[in-house]
């Protein structure tokens, strides 16, 4: 399976890459929503996108609404991974089409648990 990690922080992308690569995902990276959309338009079809909210050029919320507006990308699972922790923001992201929401800081176990809930990894797989 493929995972696209979308975060303007290289350090955060590195952390997330290690977690999902440990779950046997092939990983791809983008530094903002526009870069991620460009990769999807170029044919990348990940099963999972991990999406930060606050990014330059295009934020994660705009990315999610753009993905959900395209029927061809309806099978992509979208998980927000962000410091945005206001209830209103969480509801807004989920209403726009995010499947799950993880608030930074997180532990690897928190990411794995969410992926288990989403059925993208089997339960009991170590991070």
């Amino acid at each position, binding site marked *: 399976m493929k995972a696209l990690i979308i975060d303007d*922080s290289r350090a955060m992308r590195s952390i997330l890459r290690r977690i999902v690569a440990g779950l046997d995902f092939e990983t791809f990276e983008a530094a903002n929503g526009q870069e991620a959309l460009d990769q999807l338009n170029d044919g990348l079809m990940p099963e999972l996108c991990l999406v930060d909210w*606050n990014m330059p050029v295009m934020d994660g919320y705009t990315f999610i609404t753009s993905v959900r507006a395209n029927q061809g990308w309806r099978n992509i699972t979208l998980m927000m991974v962000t410091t945005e*922790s206001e209830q209103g923001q969480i509801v807004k992201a989920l209403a726009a089409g995010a499947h799950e929401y993880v*608030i*930074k*800081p997180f532990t690897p176990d928190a990411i794995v648990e969410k992926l288990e809930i989403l059925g993208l990894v089997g339960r009991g797989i170590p991070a």
Partner: protein
Amino acid sequence: MSSIAAPEAADVQAVTEQVWSSFLGDEEPLIPRFMEPGHPFDAEEVWSSAISIGGGWSGTVTVELSANLALELTRVMLALEAGDPISDEDLADAVGELVNMVGGNIKSLMPGPSVLTLPIVAAGRAAHASDAIEVARLDAVWAGEPVRVSVHTRASE
């Protein structure tokens, strides 16, 4: 989560410890230390980062840390080996993400809705507006290296 009128030192400490333990582990604890108000941050070489919150509550969250601590933080976040080269760009990225997480979690304690800016990072002490008022601060050491997290508001707000 209920909101508060202004962040206090205990809030800053709780948020900072949560971020710290998530990314740097619990083996080496973040140890708070007392410093008099107005006492300058005491590392010789400093990296700093700041992020602003605007909306239901407005303020700025700043992290200052010694260059050695910034290097170690970067090394851990990027999973680099001892001796691997670390660029200023890497340092700025890691220190910026640190204040992003601390600031985002302080924002969640405050009245909303509000927005968070992108972080600003500098090699050197943090700068503040001339009418900035410090409302909360944490001074701590991690692995013998100093770190300061402070929250400022504007006198005009």
